[in-house]
């Protein structure tokens, strides 16, 4: 004798449960196979459930009025057999569709032997489309590279290494003791690549000039009073930069290596280098020459907030023709910024603080700021850059001369 549990079966409606309406047997009753045990109500029908075995009712697992879930015990019956295998409710809805219960892992393409010529035979070189593009942009011939990726695939790293002239292969295996490896992925990876490219492709130099900021500070205060926001030096510098680049258009340009042309941009879209959690992002003030200083301040504010919150639109992030970076916020006096490839120039704004300046032959403590201009030496030479910087200094030291546009 053994006790078997009869679990409430799926009655074919795809429903999860049923309500016990009326028991037709009591505990202790002898029952025959297929004798009606109970009437239950599903959402659609009143159904009689017959006993699956001969035996004696051991236990009713629900009272009239109770709701029992499919798969839960309904009644236990003491049967003649020696073994008491647990019975499983069978959930198979034939006419009703069930969704997939478990996540089916995504399938990748199954490996297939290539029937085309292999690269040894002079055939095509395996490399994913983005890698091909990179190779093309760097002017690297894929067939000259030995791929280190799976199945002999040429990887991005293979291409990048190959693009460094005169270098041997960089040892990949580095002693790992005492070293903490931080993987560089996503945005940071892209930033790193762009920096590397700019450093690699653009012959850039930096020139510096120190500006007496006394008038600038006064101008700032006046502007801040007039508007309901605190105007920092940055929008004023941006404004000044945009203005002097009318006379010095090469500041707002790009060197096209393929065509060997300098592209002078008519529009002024100023990138604002912004420090965010994801790394250095450069949102863009479009048509900066159409904005007054206050307008610039607002737009810069909006863009930097959006960039930090990760909410900048692609439009916000694209299309800069020249870039400004405020290294002064970190307290730096000046810097050697790397151009925002493929632009020709980037201006770094240092910290505005009291310095010892020589005024009329005397040393005085005055607010001052050093500007650093890194530029593409293929586009500008030292003289041109120097003249531009001179004009910038001049304008910033007499800021009331800043253009006719609204302040």
């Amino acid at each position, binding site marked *: 004798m053994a006790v078997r549990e009869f679990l409430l079966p799926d009655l*074919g409606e795809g429903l999860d449960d049923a309500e016990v309406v009326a028991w037709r047997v009591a505990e202790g009753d002898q029952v025959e196979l297929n004798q009606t045990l109970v009437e239950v109500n599903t959402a659609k029908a009143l159904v009689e459930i017959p006993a699956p075995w001969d035996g004696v009712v051991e236990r009713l697992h629900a009272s009239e009025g109770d709701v029992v879930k499919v798969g839960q015990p309904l009644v236990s019956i003491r049967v003649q057999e020696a073994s008491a295998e647990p019975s499983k409710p069978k959930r198979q809805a034939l006419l*009703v569709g069930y969704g997939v219960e478990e996540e089916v892992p995504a399938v990748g393409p199954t490996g297939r032997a290539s029937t085309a010529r292999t690269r040894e035979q002079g055939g095509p070189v395996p490399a994913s489309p983005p890698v091909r593009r990179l190779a093309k942009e760097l002017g690297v011939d894929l067939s000259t590279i030995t791929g280190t990726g799976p199945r002999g695939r040429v990887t991005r790293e293979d291409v990048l290494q190959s693009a460094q002239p005169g270098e041997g292969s960089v040892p990949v295996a580095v002693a790992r003791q005492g070293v903490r490896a931080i993987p560089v992925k996503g945005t940071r990876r892209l930033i790193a690549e762009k920096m590397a490219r700019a450093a690699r492709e653009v012959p850039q130099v930096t020139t510096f000039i120190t500006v007496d900021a006394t008038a600038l500070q006064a101008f700032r205060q006046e502007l801040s009073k007039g508007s309901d926001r605190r105007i920092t030096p940055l929008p004023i510098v941006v404004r000044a930069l945009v203005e002097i680049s009318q006379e010095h258009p090469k500041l707002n340009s790009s060197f096209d290596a393929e065509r060997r042309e300098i592209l002078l941009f008519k529009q002024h879209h100023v990138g604002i280098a912004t420090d965010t959690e994801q790394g250095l992002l450069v949102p863009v003030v479009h048509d900066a020459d159409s904005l007054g200083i206050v307008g610039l301040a607002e737009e810069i504010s909006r863009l930097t907030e959006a960039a930090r919150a990760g909410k900048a639109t692609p439009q916000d992030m694209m299309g800069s023709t020249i870039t400004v970076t405020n290294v002064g916020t970190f307290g730096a006096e000046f810097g050697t910024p790397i151009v925002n490839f493929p632009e020709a120039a980037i201006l770094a704004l240092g910290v505005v603080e009291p310095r010892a300046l020589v005024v009329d032959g005397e040393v005085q403590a005055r607010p001052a700021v050093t500007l650093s201009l890194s530029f593409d030496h293929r586009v500008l030479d030292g003289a041109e850059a120097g003249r531009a910087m001179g004009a910038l200094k001049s304008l910033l030291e007499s800021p009331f001369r800043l253009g006719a546009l609204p302040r």
Partner: protein
Amino acid sequence: MNEREGPFRVLPLQGEPQHELSSIGLTEKELRELYRLMALTRRADLEATALQRQGELAVYPPLIGQEAAQVGSAFALEESDWIFPSYRELGAAVVRGVDLVEYLHFYRATWHGGTYDAVAHRFGMVSVPVASQILHAVGYAMGAKLDRIALATLVYFGDGATSEGDFHEGCNFAAVYRAPVVFFCQNNQWAISVPLSAQTAAPIWKKAQAYGFPGVRVDGNDVLAVYQVTKEAVARARDEGIPTLIEAVTYRIGPHSTADDASRYRPGEEVEQWKALDPLDRYRSWLMSSGTADQDFFQTVDAEAKQFATKMRSGVIASGPRPVEEMFEWVFADLPPHLARQRDEALRFAEESSGGSHRG
């Protein structure tokens, strides 16, 4: 075949005179065999319903009340004749000797149509799209005729099926080509919840006239009448290439399927009325009153039916799902490369998820 107002009947209902039986051509042994087959069918049908309620079958469409219509007609066929069933013909399957465990595999979701060998039993796989099997029966009959093989096909369908286009096209093809087909409609009065009056405006048996062949209405709960009418129709088909539409008037005592609650659309009194016309009771009382069978016989048959159902039950419960690779086995004659890859993948995942225990 004369047109009749009422359905053709052999076994008298209460108060009716007995019809002449000599033309039926059945021996006493065969007369008893008819009952035995109906009893096995009844018992198996009840058992299948119970199995569904116990979670062993996913769904089941009971045929209770229609035993005479199915057994009487299937019994009238030669072994070489083909039956094209729909999805409720467990009774015809019993007559054909189809293993009911294999038949019920359809309802256990083990395999579409069931797992039995249709060719060996000349009993087609369970077919679900209503009326669609009618065309197959017609085509098969045409094919047999081309081979000059003397056989007939008999296709089962319900009252609802006569509304489908395939019924119409099948009747038309059969008449035009003089295909040896018997169209056997079990008019059980209901197509799920739609009564006959909402299904068709013309009597079913009379539709045959539109196609140019005989139609006959028979009392579907009178196993001898069904037998006789079918026998004539099969002979007409086989010998003359003239199809017949048989409308067997019967009643679906149970719901459309175990997923249906018939009380929502039909009155209980109607069901009770028809229960009183139970085909087994009716035939049994005639067998007894005519002296063809006695109590011993019925007791033996009951015991046999009980055993039959028990064996079916244990066969069903003991069976498990088919091995995963069978999903790919019978798509094409040979497995094309892309399917071979898919099969390998399916097997790989099956091994991982079940630790290799998926194979049946």
